């Protein structure tokens, strides 16, 4: 068994540098790598390109890196709910590449799967298609989208083992599995780290081969963005 466990968050993010490209899992604030984001905020590196479906909120998630002007460019599908983000984008301080969510997921998957590019119908006839090759399949126009890769991918799982195998909880899975595949170095932080052999091999979502470092996370806030409830009759 190859042991992927690292004991400190400094070890987990060792090697990160300014101007690198990172992938960060999560949908909204659900399933984001809180510990790694915290450590990146403290690291002081900047000029980053961050590939993440969203950009956090003003004071949590990727919003923490935006506040400190560490991000040069965001590649995302939806960036509402973050006033500082909107301000930096409209003022031109922040470069933003908005791409359809399904294309973002597939571009990450492709990056990890050795597929350099693929055709998709999403975005045909829109701004997203500008400059991209168009080809018809079955009479329908499709645009060429290229794979995404990253120097580091930071993902968050519910359970993980020392071999790097990961299991996600609920909808906290989202982009984490594809990003885990597409990182040159993938760092997984988990709520429960167990010895290899304790997880059912048939229940693992991300095989450990895609993960280079795994760390027992701590102090998870798991903030809820839109707390919506009903009252008991």
């Amino acid at each position, binding site marked *: 068994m190859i042991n992927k466990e690292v004991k400190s968050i400094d070890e987990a993010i060792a090697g990160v540098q300014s101007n690198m490209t990172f992938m960060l899992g999560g949908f909204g604030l659900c399933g984001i790598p809180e510990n790694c984001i915290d450590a990146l905020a403290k690291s002081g590196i900047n000029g980053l390109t961050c590939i993440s479906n969203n950009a956090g909120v003003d004071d949590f998630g990727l919003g923490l890196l935006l506040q400190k002007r560490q991000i040069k460019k965001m590649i995302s599908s939806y960036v509402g709910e973050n006033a500082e983000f909107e301000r930096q984008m409209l003022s031109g301080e922040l470069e933003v590449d908005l791409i359809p969510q399904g294309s973002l997921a597939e571009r990450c998957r492709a990056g990890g799967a050795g597929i350099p590019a693929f055709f998709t119908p*999403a975005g045909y006839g829109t701004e997203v298609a500008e400059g991209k090759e168009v080809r018809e399949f079955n009479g329908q126009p499709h645009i060429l989208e290229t794979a995404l890769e990253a120097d580091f991918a930071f993902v968050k799982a519910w359970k993980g083992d020392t071999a790097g195998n990961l299991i996600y909880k609920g909808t906290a899975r989202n982009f984490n599995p594809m990003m885990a595949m597409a990182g040159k170095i993938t760092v997984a932080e988990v709520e429960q780290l167990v010895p290899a052999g304790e997880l059912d091999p048939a229940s693992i979502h991300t095989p450990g081969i895609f993960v280079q470092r795994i760390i027992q996370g701590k102090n998870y806030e798991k903030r809820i963005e839109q707390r919506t*409830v*009903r009252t008991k009759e």
Partner: protein
Amino acid sequence: MGLDKIGIAKRIAKELKDGYYVNLGIGIPTLVANYIPEGINVEFQSENGVLGMGPFPFDGEEDADLINAGKQTITTLDGAVFFDSATSFSMIRGKHVQLTVLGAMEVSENGDIANWKIPGKMVKGMGGAMDLVASADNIIVAMMHTNKAGESKLLKKCSLPLTGVSCVKKIVTNLAVLEIVPEGFLLLERAPGVSVEEIQNATEGTLIIKGTVPEMEA
């Protein structure tokens, strides 16, 4: 006169058919889940990675790891399943989802839709909307007939950046139910108490009126 948001959602709920997998967008579309006709079984897909979405949780039972694409806390029903974003959009692009309901800022008479960007003002992103509209065979738009300034949102040609081209099939507004046909917006039903003239006045695109247009059933 005309329908409120709940009225629009109720009318769209009548389009649900037994066995449908349905993706509901943020806003009015989300309300459709509250008015599923009796005897109809459908499952709701949310593109962040859940199928078999249930109602909002009871106070105190919300789970940060269980949300919908609007980032609202949710519950799941028996038979529900979680999956990653690539699998989710395989369901969507692969046409395994039978109906998509979403909101719009503008729809044109050839079925183009704009709902993700107002240049210089609002740029939140398209989220999953471009993937949804590019692939779904059955797209219903839920929206108000006019914007806050009173201008028509049913146009000859969209003025805002497009989300998708020639994709919308049906539109349910506070005033009417319309179908996109090659000649333009075919008026199918009027909202209760709304006249054909009112709908005509609120529609900038080509409105097609064939015979007597019935009033929507309550």
